[in-house]
């Protein structure tokens, strides 16, 4: 496929249509700019630093992996799953809120790009920062594998679960960010909602007959399932559905600005 589309217009008497980038090209350009912008401000470094500090603290201080008597990364994945509702809103809070506040969104949206290219670009840019955080923990399985026989299946599952769980939290954060011009509001709303869903999974006993439904709605339940090394289609469908619904709501939010 060529890099550009220069299709002639169908409208009689119209100018020749200008160059319009392919969806992939536009999405990547926006994602690249979004990703790089995290490192042009302290935010990217703070997020990575805090993430590694907390993961290191939660991983090594309790020596949880030693108490289990076998080489496993299960305690580390459990620790990180606690961090996702905090880290992901911090990554996603500025995606749309900051651009709305400063007016750069108008410049971006009036370029020849589709709304969903903007949304996906921002989503993948934010996910890129989370991926950097996750990749930075790759040294842990290497260390553990030298201390004993490490089953790499659950390790791969755990990382996949982290990425999917993180993507779900980020998509929610992107959606909330599109509703407001204040990134602090965006952070707190997505953090609180994420934390509530996370904690509900730890308190299922209070939900009686609705416990199974509540459990299914909680990302932590699906993450724990994948982190055991079992890739179940239901878990994948859950994460993909959450991401799709949140990004669709973001698209509706952008669309509604035009009609406001």
């Amino acid at each position, binding site marked *: 496929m060529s*890099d550009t589309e220069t299709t002639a217009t169908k409208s009689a008497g*119209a100018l020749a249509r200008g*160059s*319009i980038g392919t969806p992939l090209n536009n999405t990547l*350009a926006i994602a690249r700019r979004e990703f790089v912008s995290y490192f*042009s401000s302290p935010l990217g470094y703070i997020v990575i630093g805090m993430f590694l500090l907390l993961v290191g603290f939660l991983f090594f201080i309790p020596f949880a992996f030693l108490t289990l008597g076998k080489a496993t990364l299960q305690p580390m994945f459990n620790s990180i799953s606690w961090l996702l509702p905090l880290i992901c809103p911090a990554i996603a809070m500025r995606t749309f809120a900051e651009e709305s506040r*400063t007016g750069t969104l*108008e410049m971006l949206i*009036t*370029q020849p790009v589709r709304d969903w290219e903007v949304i996906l670009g921002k989503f993948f840019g934010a996910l890129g920062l989370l991926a950097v955080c996750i990749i930075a923990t790759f040294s842990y399985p290497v260390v553990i594998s030298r201390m004993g026989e490490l089953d790499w299946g659950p390790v791969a599952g755990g990382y996949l679960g982290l990425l999917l769980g993180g993507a779900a939290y980020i998509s929610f954060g992107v959606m909330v960010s599109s509703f407001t011009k204040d990134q602090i509001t965006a952070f707190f709303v997505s953090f609180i909602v994420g934390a509530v869903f996370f904690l509900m999974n730890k308190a299922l006993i209070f939900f009686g007959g609705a416990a199974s439904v509540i459990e299914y709605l909680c990302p932590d339940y699906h993450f724990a399932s994948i982190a055991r090394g079992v890739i179940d289609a239901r878990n994948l469908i859950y994460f993909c559905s959450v991401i799709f619904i949140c990004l669709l709501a973001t698209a509706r939010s952008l669309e509604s600005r035009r009609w406001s």
Partner: protein
Amino acid sequence: MATSDVMIETRELSKVYGAQRAVDRLSFEIRRGEVVGFLGPNGAGKSTTMKILTCFLSPSEGTAKVGGFDVFDDPLSVRSVLGYLPQRASLYPEMGVVEYLEFAADLRAIPKDKRRAKIKEVVEICGLKEVLAKTINELSYGYRQRVGLAQALIHDPPILILDEPTADLDPNESAEVISYIKEIGKTRTIMLSTHDLVEVKEACARVLIVNRGKIVADGAPDDLAAKSGSVKYVLSIDGGKDDSVRKSGPVIAAVKRVVADSVVREMPGDDHATLLEVSVKGSGDHRREFFRMAVENKWDLLELRREAVQLEEVFRQLTVGDGAPRRNAGSKASDTNPAVKESSSDV
């Protein structure tokens, strides 16, 4: 393929915010190669109209086409043929100037092998050479506007929509941006919104004045001024050895004989010359008659001109009393010319 000459077209365009009609059944056309000033007081609907034309907002009613493409049905094609500089262009502050222009070129799908040449071209047109190594947050407001203009030009669009490109600039920066706009307007269709009527006269061959979301005037700046019914002339006459001319009476009487239906006001001048401001009803041009009057009376005509700020009066006549604040409207002209200030207050 044959292309129409109409580059921007609106038909009964409206935008409603709650109970307020920001744009009210607006219809106009802008043809190929025109540089059109889009004037109006704050809240008149200028920016809203421009946001609709750039597909940032959707109209509540009516249609709009840019380059022949409908803003509702084919927004991507609309955006592909136009360059847009929003009011107070917001750019990513952390990006470098070149990095930002590369990003703009990327979104405009300019092939990589042509990108460098395109960036070089717009850098030259917009005078950005001195700041290429800087990030945007290090630039003055004027330079940021130029970067905004450069991104609007990067794909060489046939149509440009510029929303108050000189707002908040100092007079030098403002004059530079206007000179760039005049330069790029030689080969493009430009719709330019501004509060500064002096700039409009300088850069635009046609003016659209909007008030309360409606077009209230459309035409060349001089024609609009003439149609206002209050064309003004400034005459400076030196009588030489004719001492009577040092007293303005004979000159005023002569002017009254030339144009009976005129209001003549003497303005402060030097000792040897009589300086008059002559207000004439109607749209005729009386400069030749004033010249002949001076020749017949053997007076030296030191100065004869139509007032350059007549557009300001038209603007005020058409938009005054709407309750909207008239920030900056014609401020440059009236601030620097007390005579103009006085004559404007008559309206």
